[in-house]
């Protein structure tokens, strides 16, 4: 059952991602990317990471992509102008690089999977209980990773300042 669900959601994510990078219109790209976020949220649910799944939809689909959409609509790229540009040009070396990457890392992955003990076997995995609830993640986040969490807030502060300074027309 989980295999079927994974194929459905994972396939949805992959196809949406492919469509997102090949669309001419940034709005269509953004919408396909929302599809990818939902597919990945489904994958997280299959992996029993429910909290991550909810946050994925809340943060990515609910906030980041809305911001994206807002900016794209604010720039108001005329569809006519986009049509004139024609379909997106895909340089052959770029496609080659991506293909090479997937071949190389896929080979590395296959190599790793072949190593005994890299992945626990099915029954070993079934014995491991993982509590992906908000409480457990919160305890881990504010316990072991507290310093990283605090550093993240500084990163966000920098992001806020940077965004404000970059978009202000004139600082007075």
């Amino acid at each position, binding site marked *: 059952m989980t295999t079927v669900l994974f194929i459905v959601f994972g396939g949805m994510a992959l196809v949406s991602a492919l469509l997102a990078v090949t669309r001419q219109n940034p709005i269509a790209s953004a919408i396909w990317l929302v599809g990818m976020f939902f597919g990945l949220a489904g994958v997280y649910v299959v992996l029993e990471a429910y909290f991550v799944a909810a946050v994925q939809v809340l943060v990515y689909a609910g906030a980041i992509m809305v911001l994206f959409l807002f900016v794209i609509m604010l720039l108001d790229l005329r569809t006519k102008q986009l049509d004139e540009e024609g379909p997106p040009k895909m340089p052959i070396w770029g496609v080659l690089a991506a293909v090479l990457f997937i071949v190389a890392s896929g080979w590395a992955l296959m190599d790793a999977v072949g190593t005994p003990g890299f992945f626990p076997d099915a029954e070993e995995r079934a014995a491991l209980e993982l509590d992906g609830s908000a409480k457990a993640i919160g305890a881990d986040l504010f316990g072991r990773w507290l310093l990283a969490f605090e550093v993240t807030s500084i990163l966000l502060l*920098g992001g806020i300042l940077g965004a*404000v300074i970059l978009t202000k027309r004139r600082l007075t």
Partner: protein
Amino acid sequence: MAASFLHPLLAAGVDMPLEWVVGLGLALFSVGLLGVACRRNILIMLLSVEIMLNAANVVLVAFSRVHSELSGQVFVFFSMTVAAAEVAIGLAIVIAVYRLRQSTDVDDAADLGEVDYGPVPPLKLEGEDQHHHDDHGDADHSNDAGSDGAAPDSAEPIGAAGEA
């Protein structure tokens, strides 16, 4: 425990090969790479970076599941925070570039590259028609000074260009 409504469906636990999830992450990362490498639209390049970050997240969650270790899921949150900050800054840059170039094509913002950048429209600022083509590097400079507030008079045309 969580999402008990799903448990009848997932009663057997996660029984699929987790290698597939890593494979999915790999494929997504490649798609993102494709987007960053091949597309020239700066918005779609930013979206592709998001795809790559998400690919990393999938793998983190998969390994968190494999090793029964919550740190993987915690790191997804850090990754999301980085993504949010990246998008905020990235979009701010997009808006700043668009104000100057009226374009979202990264090749149009290649002033610091080789001189021969083909049929790129020169930087046009309203009220600065007396400057001829070669002067647009100076115009860039005046923009920097203007945004610092040091030379408000030269900042005027920038603001006007932004309104247009």
